[in-house]
């Protein structure tokens, strides 16, 4: 049997856990190290661009590296218009589908459809770009009578599609996590299921849904292959809604397309890194803002529940 020790002043609990605890702690902090490394690297490789090219060139609206035109505005515009378009598709369809699956669909239907949505999430972007190129763009060209189907619209549709599974899956989990008692209480007070969804369940799941949409948008901004294959890759600054139907080029596509042909440490190389760090900073801002929202949401929820 175990030896019985008199409780007394003993040294601290066994040291054998020291190593594993240290390893776990190191792993925990590794994320910070990686982000730091990435930022530092991008910074170091992109700063020369500012020196070599100059701000007025960078802020112009002409991207034509061969003739030393490094205006990034068209690229930023391209990313912007596609992201907005994608959000306008992903938000309603994504949240709507999540609500349907979580609150309305009968169990058997939900169990069948949910995996299908996840399949879309697993589709490699290059496959979607491939299909978009061969099917969506030609159809857009025919239906909308455009000179080419390779356009911002095609990109928006596909990116919306790419963002939807993220939005659906995380929103659905958030809605699912709302305790049954909330819904029961609402229904017991005479509300219909529809009212319960909009007034009780969805607000309770708000932080999760917000996270979902944020992550979805994040995916859209960061997409490379799909946009490379369907947006036409013409670095023209989009100026209005009409430009949705013309080709654009995103920042991501620019890096991917031109990095391979660029000489190491040339000006073009540095400018591509500059675009990279702009992308990094954009995603940083989007993510930190959204997570701050989620955080504040959680705190107020906790206050309500206690």
């Amino acid at each position, binding site marked *: 049997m175990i030896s019985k020790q008199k409780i007394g002043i003993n040294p601290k609990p066994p040291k054998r856990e020291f190593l594993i605890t240290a390893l776990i702690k190191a792993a925990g902090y590794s994320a910070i190290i990686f982000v730091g490394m990435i930022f530092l690297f991008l910074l170091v490789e992109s700063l020369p661009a500012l020196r070599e090219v100059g701000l007025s060139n960078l802020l112009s609206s002409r991207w034509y590296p061969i003739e030393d035109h490094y205006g990034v505005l068209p690229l930023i515009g391209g990313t912007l218009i596609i992201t907005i378009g994608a959000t306008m598709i992903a938000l309603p369809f994504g949240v709507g589908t999540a609500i349907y699956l979580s609150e309305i669909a009968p169990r058997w239907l939900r169990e069948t459809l949910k995996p299908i949505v996840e399949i879309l999430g697993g589709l490699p972007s290059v496959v979607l770009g491939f299909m978009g190129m061969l099917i969506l763009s030609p159809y857009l060209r025919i239906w909308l009578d455009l000179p080419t189907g390779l356009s911002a619209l095609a990109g928006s549709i596909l990116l919306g599609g790419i963002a939807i599974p993220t939005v659906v899956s995380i929103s659905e989990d958030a809605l699912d996590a709302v305790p049954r008692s909330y819904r029961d209480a609402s229904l017991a007070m005479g509300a219909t299921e529809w009212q319960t969804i909009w007034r009780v369940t969805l607000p309770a799941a708000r932080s999760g849904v917000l996270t979902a949409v944020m992550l979805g948008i994040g995916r859209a901004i960061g997409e490379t292959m799909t946009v490379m294959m369907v947006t036409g890759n013409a670095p023209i600054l989009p100026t209005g809604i009409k430009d949705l139907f013309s080709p654009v080029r995103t920042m991501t596509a620019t890096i991917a397309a031109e*990095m391979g042909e660029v000489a190491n440490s040339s000006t073009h190389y540095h400018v591509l890194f500059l675009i990279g760090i702009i992308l990094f900073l954009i995603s940083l801002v989007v993510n930190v803002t959204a997570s701050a929202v989620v955080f504040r949401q959680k705190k107020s929820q906790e206050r309500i529940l206690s």
Partner: protein
Amino acid sequence: MTMKLSARQYKQRLGFSLLTLMTFLTIIPIMGVVIYIIYLGLPAINLEFLTGFPREGMREGGILPAIIGTFYLTLGTAIFAVPLGIGSAIYLSEYAPDNKATQLIRIAIINLAGIPSVVYGLFGLGLFVLFLGFGTSILAGSLTLSIMTLPVIISTTEEALRAVPQSFRTVSMSLGATKWQTIRRIVLPQALPGILTGVILGLERAAGETAPILFTVAAFFLPRLPNSPLDATMALPYHLYVISTQVPGMPIKIQYGTALVLLAFVLSMNLVATAIRSRARARRQW
């Protein structure tokens, strides 16, 4: 009273129909894409395609090097990302105090999750290929992909760990177990299905990514199998990209066939993950 009830019910019916429509508008294209690829890609699938090497500038023959390459990359990513990711999640879920440092870690993870895949490619090129001198290699590609996969693994693992009821931990410690013993004996085993699901889904994403491997590992014309982690290799996503956009006269059948193989690779992982998750839900002991 009756009038009011009708109006609300009408609203409900309308709302439900709208959402149902939206859902099916989302679902149907997905199924359409998959079915279409299967339909057009299946004719290309035969033993030679799957096990042979490419010929005639990729226009004939098989895609074995690409399949093997993707397999190695996935494996490499797992080797780096899984221990680091799970360890990190354990720290966050079980050890981390509620302070600014922990908040910083979480922000860092959210950031890593949001960084565009092509920026990872840029970073991988700069650090692993050039600075550390690994060259265009499976090693460089795996390292790049694993940092990219880290946030997915961390967040799903943390979620799985947190789902284990706190009461188990309290009981375990009240019986004289240490923190790590509690984690190793109760928390991890209970969280395992969730962790596995997350890992598989993360690796699935890594397998299908093109941008991070564009400059770090992928080669187009490399009709032999890689011998060491320092070799470059073909990979399915990159292969599909090139043959569909940059090779004139590429038979459509081959393109769809390649797409189908990539799809099958990725979807089978998805299936396994889903199966694990369903089984775990049914057998849960709390």
